[in-house]
């Protein structure tokens, strides 16, 4: 594992954007920063500028106005940037799918393969979001060998 990847896994700075959400998921994201869950112990910080961010947390169903802005934000982020879709609305627009202001869902607004992890829930619990961020970070590393070797030993 290179130094770059290892450092990225240890220090994911997150930027949060709400594409027309009801703010329920946004409140749960703020919960992650509070003492009960505290993602700063994983090195995660909430940053104010998209250029400083390593992970883009997107909530909300994509409506016409905000989908364009989310696409612009993704293009402005300094790569490598993980995108984590949070909540049922960001996954597939949830109950708002047939509304007049909806356009295509998040993974079609952004370039293919941009969205790294989908965290379902309405809203997802902070534990689910933390698991999602950990899975997104683990995707940077190729399949781990040591875990499988241990399993084989247990079988023997």
């Amino acid at each position, binding site marked *: 594992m290179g130094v770059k990847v290892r450092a990225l896994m240890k220090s994911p700075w997150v930027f949060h954007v709400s594409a027309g959400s009801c703010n329920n998921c946004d409140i749960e994201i703020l919960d992650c920063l509070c003492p009960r869950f505290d993602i700063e112990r994983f090195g995660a910080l909430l940053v104010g500028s998209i250029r400083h961010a390593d992970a883009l947390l997107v909530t909300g169903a994509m409506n*016409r106005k905000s989908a*364009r802005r989310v*696409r612009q934000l993704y293009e402005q982020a300094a790569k490598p940037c993980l995108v984590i879709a949070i909540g049922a609305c960001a996954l597939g627009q949830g109950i708002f799918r047939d509304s*007049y*202001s*909806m*356009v295509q869902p998040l993974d*079609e*607004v952004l370039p293919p393969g941009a969205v790294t992890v989908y965290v379902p829930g309405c809203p997802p619990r902070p534990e689910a979001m933390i698991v999602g961020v950990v899975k997104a970070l683990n995707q940077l590393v190729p399949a781990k060998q040591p875990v499988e070797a241990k399993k084989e030993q247990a079988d023997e």
Partner: protein
Amino acid sequence: MNREQVLKQVQNTLGDRVKNLFVKNPRRVYFDVDPGDVVEITRILHKDLGARFCIASGMEMERDFEILYHFGFESEPPEGVLVSARVHLDKDKPAVDSITPGVPAAAWIEREMHELLGIEFRNHPDMRPLLLAEDWPADVCPLRRGKPWEGKVDRRI
């Protein structure tokens, strides 16, 4: 001012322009007004009687359009009364005078009703689109019945 006094004041000041007064429960009062009187009545409610303009709701019903203007008479809790004045508008071309000159707080909600329901407000000082996206066609009113945006709006950006 308690509820009975509010009710009496409303009836006395507005006289017979108040039609179908309906006291649904001690905190909720509804009455109808003619579209021609609405500017005067809302101005009296807001300026003379001192009610706060809360919001206005527009609805498309089966036979006409309705707008309700909600005014709140705020006193020490639990004495608060919400008074709603209802106008009925023509189904084909809904139009009414804007109450914004007398109640400045109504400016944005009238913009929203114009944009989403297609109700025309005469003499509105600043009728710009408020909520919809920049490329939304101006004549499609999304909150009307029957999905009027079908086929007229591109669903991908």
